[in-house]
């Protein structure tokens, strides 16, 4: 533990992290079966090579601008801010990206890398279906074969996204093992990868998994925070007082947070899914209520029982329904640079309706968790203070879930 706190004193470490083996303090690393070590080392090498390659970066920039639609706007939520009666709240509009969420920032990057590495087949896991759609989208464009693994439970609650993936030409494989949700989809994607290592590129959808994924996905998502920095400087003339983002695996959150980590005056809040409430045990909040362990290739906070078995999670939002979290968040929690909180299904739904009615923007249920925390935080702050919240995705995919809760069938 002393290693962790020492490194916290050295601010430049935020950009030096992780180390060459993918460690963020005691977290992260490469915990996979031997068969996958060679492809992971190959990927690490390719990523190291291309991440500073000007041609690669120019192509990425071009795609982000013309295909994804970046930069995404920073929007002042005037009427909701007034209602909350405290800080000025800005939305970083990742919901306006092509395919409706931040996930595409990462899939565009990884697909370009896959292409450079000569891989003709991509696979992905998905929970809410947003990452699956974002992967199917880039695969269609680059003419790559695409297989998406999705828990059978999630297939039921995200039917629209399943159909979108199929329209895009992807094969969607239902996963019937374990809890039939995101973690099991990830297991199944790993099994596919280990079987087809020669021609397959695994596009992981969040900052979890073995090194180099947590660092690589963070770097592809950090465009969110870099743009936010410029935009808030030009709109407010200063840095924000607080950043807020929901945390499933943690990619939209780290994307927003990372370019601000060295700015110690900027408070950082990651919002996990408390489901029926942290006390109920039915939640998906490993950072708030879990313990460190090893799953899916890295050491991180997990929801597990006394035998080390991973326990089932619960959240109204499929994209947050994951028992682990990216290792960098575990490290940021331990060194105290970010605070992690949780909001319940009910609080998220209230925020979903409030923001939809007061701003004319319908947030994804995942993003609604971040908004629900803003609804608590903003009133405690002064009227000249500034919060930026990541509107990580749009709510169209969730209207069936919301309608069903209100007893309406659409």
């Amino acid at each position: 533990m002393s290693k962790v706190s020492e490194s916290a004193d050295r601010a430049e470490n935020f950009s030096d992290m992780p180390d060459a083996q993918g460690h963020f303090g005691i977290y992260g690393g490469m915990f996979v079966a031997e068969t996958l070590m060679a492809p992971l080392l190959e990927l690490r090498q390719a990523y190291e090579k291309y991440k500073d390659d000007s041609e690669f970066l120019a192509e990425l920039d071009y795609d982000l601008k013309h295909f994804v639609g970046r930069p995404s706007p920073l929007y002042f939520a005037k009427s909701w801010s007034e209602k909350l009666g405290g800080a000025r709240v800005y939305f970083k509009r990742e919901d306006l990206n092509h395919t409706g969420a931040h996930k595409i920032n990462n899939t565009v990057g990884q697909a370009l890398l896959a292409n450079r590495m000569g891989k003709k087949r991509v696979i992905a896991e998905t929970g809410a279906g947003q990452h699956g759609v974002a992967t199917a989208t880039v695969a269609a464009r680059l003419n790559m074969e695409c297989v998406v693994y999705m828990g059978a439970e999630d297939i039921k609650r995200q039917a629209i996204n399943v159909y979108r993936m199929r329209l895009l030409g992807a094969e969607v494989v239902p996963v019937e093992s374990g809890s039939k949700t995101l973690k099991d989809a990830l297991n199944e994607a790993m099994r596919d990868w280990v079987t087809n290592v020669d021609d397959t590129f695994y596009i992981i959808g969040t900052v979890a998994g073995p090194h180099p994924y947590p660092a690589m996905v963070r770097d592809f998502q950090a465009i969110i925070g870099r743009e936010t920095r410029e935009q808030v400087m030009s709109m407010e003339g200063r840095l924000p007082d607080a950043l807020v983002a929901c945390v499933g695996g943690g990619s939209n959150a780290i994307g927003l947070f990372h370019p601000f980590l060295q700015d110690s005056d900027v408070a950082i809040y990651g919002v996990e899914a408390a489901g029926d409430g942290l006390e109920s045990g039915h939640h998906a909040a490993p950072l708030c209520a879990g313990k460190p362990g090893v799953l899916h290739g890295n050491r991180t906070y997990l929801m597990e029982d006394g035998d080390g078995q991973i326990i089932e999670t619960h959240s109204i939002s499929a994209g947050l329904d994951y028992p682990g979290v990216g290792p960098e968040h575990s490290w940021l929690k331990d060194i105290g640079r970010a605070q992690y909180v949780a909001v319940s299904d009910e609080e998220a739904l209230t925020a979903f309706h409030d923001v939809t009615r007061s701003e004319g923007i319908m947030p994804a249920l995942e993003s609604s968790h971040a908004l629900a925390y803003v609804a608590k935080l903003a009133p405690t702050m002064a009227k000249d203070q500034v919060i930026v919240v990541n509107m990580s995705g749009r709510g169209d995919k969730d209207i069936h879930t919301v309608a069903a809760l209100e007893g309406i069938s659409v």
Partner: protein
Amino acid sequence: MSRIKACFDSLKQRNRTALIPYIMAGDPEPGVTVALMHAMVEAGADLIELGVPFSDPMADGPVIQAASERALEHHIGLRTVIDMVRNFRQQDSTTPVVLMGYLNPLEVMGYAPFAAAAAEAGVDGVLTVDIPPEESHDLIEMLHQHGLDPIYLIAPTSTSARIQSICANASGFVYYVSLKGVTGAANLQVQAVEDKLKEIRTYTDLPLGVGFGISDAERAAQVSQSADAVVVGSAIIKRIAANITDQTAISAEVTSLLRSMRQAMDS
């Protein structure tokens, strides 16, 4: 001398390839396991790999995943598995037992308490699927302190540099994963396995076991030409799965499979 080394030394003298069955502890229910271990020894098993159930067995195919789920219905955890080995040792003090599973149960129990309890109960080796040598310094140290052999996997994708560093850390035996895939897959290529074993032998004198995808007596016999040990998992567990409610039938079918493999390997 460790039980594993003694076992392989004696097999070598008799010019015999080890037969290593793998079963999941607590599958289909806890009462079956220890009796089945004894029956397998009786039928010709030289060493036993005992699976530790895990909720997320990423390297396993559907057959072993299902075995893990059946065992977890009975809440079989690492401590219970260690107790089963202690129980087994009351009647069998020579057959080596290797625990095979995933890292998280060891992380939660703690490496030191785990190694102490396992050694005390009569466990001989520990194969943790998801910990490559890069991450395993602390675990190896703890296992060695308690006289346990860390068993390592080598894969078809392992480069010669990796094979070298894995062999430097290993003791007991080295486990070659015969194919790119999960346990129980069907794409085993005997010639490719032979070639890789030759390469591995240039880096180590440790016995080489081969597993993943050995489904019948014929394959076992083919692989035993070049390997020092043949590991059979999914083929056994299929027979358990087909007889879930009938302990006598499980024992009969599993031992008959092992006898046929033993016979094919020895002839």
